[in-house]
């Protein structure tokens, strides 16, 4: 990414083409009264501060700790996730898919960037980029290796290409040696990538 030099000079000659383009667009839309700049601030703040993968980690930790919740999550993920307060845009129709020793799930959106915002926040750049979108469906083991994940050759790999408004959340496998841990402590083991399927949950030693 380009270095960002923003010093609020009177002339904008130091701005890149895209910075100028976005600035122009916002000026016009605000001037015409279509957009309230404070609403832009509020939208950005929501996804920069309030929503993120800690939400999903709470869902997964609860599923690990509470068999009834796990069952609910598998049957009606939208309702189970909503019960924890995670609702709304880009999470209207949720499906949770569970990793097992025999089967590993990976989520992709080959057509754009569909991603479960209420539980994971906004997607990372790699999720939206051509290398991941092109190869996750064709060479998932190669992609996993780039994330440092090497699964046994016999593990079945399931790719979920989010081509509609359904959003997928991977429930990673609960690490060994975590019996008796609180939901809060378990949530610390759940990484963003483990809920996309490009990572595994952390071992308890890693967070001590």
């Amino acid at each position: 990414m380009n270095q960002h030099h923003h010093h609020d000079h009177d002339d904008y000659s130091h701005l890149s083409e895209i910075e100028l383009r976005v600035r122009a667009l916002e000026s016009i839309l605000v001037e015409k009264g279509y957009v309230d700049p404070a609403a832009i601030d509020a939208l950005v703040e929501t996804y920069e501060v309030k929503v993120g993968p800690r939400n999903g980690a709470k869902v997964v930790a609860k599923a690990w700790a509470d068999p009834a919740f796990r069952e609910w999550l598998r049957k009606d993920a939208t309702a189970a996730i909503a019960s924890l307060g995670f609702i709304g845009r880009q999470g209207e129709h949720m499906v949770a898919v569970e990793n097992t020793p025999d089967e590993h799930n990976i989520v992709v959106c080959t057509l754009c960037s569909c991603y479960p915002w209420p539980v994971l926040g906004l997607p990372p750049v790699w999720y939206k980029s051509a290398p991941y979108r092109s190869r996750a469906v064709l060479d998932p083991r190669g992609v996993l290796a780039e994330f440092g994940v090497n699964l046994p050759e016999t593990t079945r790999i399931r790719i979920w290409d989010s081509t509609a408004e359904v959003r997928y959340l991977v429930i990673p496998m609960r690490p060994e040696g975590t019996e008796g841990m609180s939901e809060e402590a378990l949530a610390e083991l759940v990484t963003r990538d483990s809920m996309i399927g490009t990572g595994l949950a952390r071992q308890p030693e890693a967070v001590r």
Partner: protein
Amino acid sequence: MNGAQDLGGMMGFGPVAIEQDEPWFHAEWERRAFGLTLAMGATGSWNIDMSRHARESLPPADYLSSSYYEIWTKGVERLVVAARLVSREELTCGRSLVQPAPIKRVLKAEDVPAVLARGGPAERPVEQLARFAVGDRVRTRNMHPQGHTRLPRYARGKTGVVELVHGAHVFPDANAHGQGEQPQWLYTICLSGQELWGEQADPTVSVSIDAWESYLEPA
């Protein structure tokens, strides 16, 4: 349309570029582009399928050489022009030249939490029964529409099994072109890696797509 957005199965883009401790945005203009896109979406001047189509119908070379929020910005520019909210001339000179057009609503900061919480559910009640059930074998159509579609090229003309039935959802192929929601039953179809990529493909891999009923025929 067979645009540059339909990346599944392409080669040559190199390894996945993973960034440790990645920030939510990489520059202030990305924040503004993100917020502008959502705020304009909330005006009700277009729907999410039109919004996706505006991005996906960028010329392929432009799409592939633009960053994510550049694509979003170009998408909003196209949408505001198509909706006659802003003229090309205004975009070029960077300021408003004529009176604003009437707009359905303007998103206020205090309404942002409620609007995001409501989201945009795509499920709709329909009278017709689902044509397919879990476990049915189906074949995806070999189709190449000029307009918007959510059936990726790599999954056309392939045989798979219905894994989930989601209810009837807004049909993007129609909704993207202002033809109404025309809801159809939506299914998750599981396709084997070998069906998609040939006999040499990894037999442990399978890929599922979400497909509307008219994308499918019995197999």
